[in-house]
């Protein structure tokens, strides 16, 4: 799902960087609207690192195994931070693992980042699911849809970009066949991504439900935003941030 360096024309790389810059700007604006964006930053960063590591887990699907992208889940958990986290994750993947590339960073961030933002929207539609279903089932369904639709969108963008990259002399019938084969080969991945996202969402609901509310929409705890006028006299060993900063 990562386009390497030198594979697509420079115009596509430049347009990719331009579009990715615009989306990054929009996401940063959305994030800055939060009463205390600084409070969310460490969570987004550590979760971005965790997602980077989690995508290295191999999911067995005999006779092979797959690596997941988890863009839908990333969107559900990180909200607008998801695109920024993906940009950073792809930067690290290009540096450490040689997946993707520096010249195609913009294009690759669109392939995985746009589905993450769409996944964010889809996951938060769970409140529209029938009330007769239990919250756990509702989360599972919306998780599946966010994961599967996100992956489907990523494959669609990826294949559309590949059409730009195919050499002019390529036989039209072979080209159609190659793209169709690529699309069909990604079919199981769409299902696996959906199922795994649903399983993960269900697990998170059981263990840490606040992770599923999205970072941007989560209210900031009072201690992180309000200055304490009277330091608590109970224990002199406890330092508050404000006592140190004043």
């Amino acid at each position, binding site marked *: 799902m990562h386009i390497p360096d030198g594979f697509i024309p420079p115009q596509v790389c430049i347009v990719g960087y331009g579009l990715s810059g615009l989306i990054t700007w929009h996401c940063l604006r959305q994030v800055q609207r939060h009463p205390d964006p600084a409070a969310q930053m460490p969570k987004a960063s550590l979760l971005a690192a965790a997602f980077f*590591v989690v995508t290295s887990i191999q999911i067995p699907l005999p006779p092979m195994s797959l690596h997941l992208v988890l863009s839908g889940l990333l969107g559900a958990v990180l909200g607008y931070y998801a695109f920024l986290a993906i940009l950073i994750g792809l930067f690290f993947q290009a540096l450490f693992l040689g997946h993707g590339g520096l010249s195609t960073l913009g294009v690759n961030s669109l392939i995985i980042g746009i589905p993450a933002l769409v996944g964010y929207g889809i996951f938060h539609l769970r409140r529209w699911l029938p009330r007769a279903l239990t919250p756990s089932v509702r989360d599972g369904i919306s998780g599946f849809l966010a994961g599967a639709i996100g992956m489907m969108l990523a494959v669609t963008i990826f294949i559309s970009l590949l059409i730009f990259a195919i050499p002019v*002399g390529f036989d039209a019938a*072979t080209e159609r066949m190659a793209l169709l084969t690529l699309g069909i080969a990604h079919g199981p991945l769409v299902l696996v991504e959906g199922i795994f996202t649903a399983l993960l969402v269900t697990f998170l609901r059981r263990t840490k439900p606040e992770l599923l509310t999205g970072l941007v929409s989560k209210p900031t705890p009072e201690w992180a935003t309000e200055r304490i006028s009277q330091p608590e006299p109970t224990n002199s060993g406890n330092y508050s941030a404000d006592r140190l900063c004043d």
Partner: protein
Amino acid sequence: MRLTLDTYAGLHSPLHCWWPRSKLVGLGVLMLGFACVQQVQLIPVCLMVTAVLYGLSGLPWSFLRSRLRYPGLFLLGLVIALPLLSGSTILWQWGPFAIRQEGLLAMGLIAGRFLSIVTLGMLLLGTTPLLMLIDSLVSLGLPPLLAEMTLLSYRYLFDMADQLTNLRQAMRLRGFHPNGNRQSWQQLAAVAGTLLVRSYEQSERVYKAMRLRGYGHSQSVKSQIKGWGKSADLVAIGLCATISLALIGTQIWLTVPET
């Protein structure tokens, strides 16, 4: 998971001594020039410039070899597929397999461009400590929030990778063997979920620690890298820009039809 990159950043070579901000711009411009190459005749020039720069950097060839292992698989696929599937001029045929001229040229172009750009990327990262590179990006206008996120993610990436290794080891010791059934998928989802929950809890502790050290009250990340270095650093940028422009110019000259 191998996450080391700064192993050779402490060497002493012209590339290592190049001022990071200038190096980022110079090599970036050169990468752009290489990406613009559409004529296979120009590929030897790209490869030669890259080889000279790599030689100057003093980085061992094993470093490049190890970094090219994964992207090399992509390259292999390209080398096999393109000459067989693309084009109409047959150069050599054996039964149903035919090597076509157009495919061969396209393969040379894409593979050459790919090798040159990837090697330049490795040069940039192999000769500059990552923190300095991010600092240079901030000095060139990277939003502070993005820089802070990158630095913090980088700091905890190694911790997370260690935690995943421990979780995997613990599962193996308890007899876990992934075989693709529902139960093993659920267990893998639990592993991934545990890592996410742990990172979330750790992030709350990290945030409290950062607040205690004044985070959020003072100005955000500010670059320590100012200016463009010495005159030699500027000359190097000029040289890269000249090569890049020459490539783009030759490219245009080669594609314009003769009247």
